[in-house]
């Protein structure tokens, strides 16, 4: 079970790019890296997942170095609506991973 470490909180101004890094030093060969976003009073929402290198979708990019011991979620030009908690999950199945406390991102006007 890969243990993940991410910052407790981050602040960013509107319009800036935000990078949230997750450390997972004991990631296993078959583990995926998945990120979720949770707004207050809502359930988490899947953002992006990857295995290696770079993945991009309409919401974010995920950068994974060759050793896969960390990953970085990149949110381009954040707005106030991106204020949320972001969770990094690492593993093979949802029944064997933990959401942890995540990173609370506060976007400032």
């Amino acid at each position, binding site marked *: 079970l890969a243990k993940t470490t991410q910052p407790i909180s981050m602040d960013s101004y509107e319009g800036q790019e935000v990078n949230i890094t997750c450390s997972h030093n004991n990631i296993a060969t078959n583990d*995926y890296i998945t990120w979720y976003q949770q707004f207050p*009073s809502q359930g*988490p929402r899947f953002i992006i997942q990857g295995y290696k290198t770079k993945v991009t979708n309409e919401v974010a990019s995920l950068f994974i170095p060759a050793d896969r011991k960390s990953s970085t979620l990149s949110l381009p030009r954040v707005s106030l609506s991106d204020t949320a908690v972001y969770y990094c999950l690492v593993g*093979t199945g*949802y*029944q064997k991973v*933990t959401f942890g406390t*995540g990173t609370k991102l506060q976007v400032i006007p």
Partner: protein
Amino acid sequence: NAGVTQTPKFRVLKTGQSMTLLCAQDMNHEYMYWYRQDPGMGLRLIHYSVGEGTTAKGEVPDGYNVSRLKKQNFLLGLESAAPSQTSVYFCASSYLGQLNQPQHFGDGTRLSIL
């Protein structure tokens, strides 16, 4: 397309009372999950199901029971509610259980035990 629907959205119980939380999904997903989320904490897995008629324990199963009689429904029961079970409960479903596929969450049930 409703996705994952949780019923009820809010409930207040007295210690010792029982209740059932209902989760329904319309995406034909095999896997379903129940989580609890306490203030300042992440989600903790209570029970999960890998298909109709199956259930399994998660990280914090004590005090809860579950049933998956129909593929689309996953019920969470509290037989004798305790104040420590005051929490927000989230249900989720996924097509399969692998982390490379998204989980879809409901909007939660806010439960207070007095």
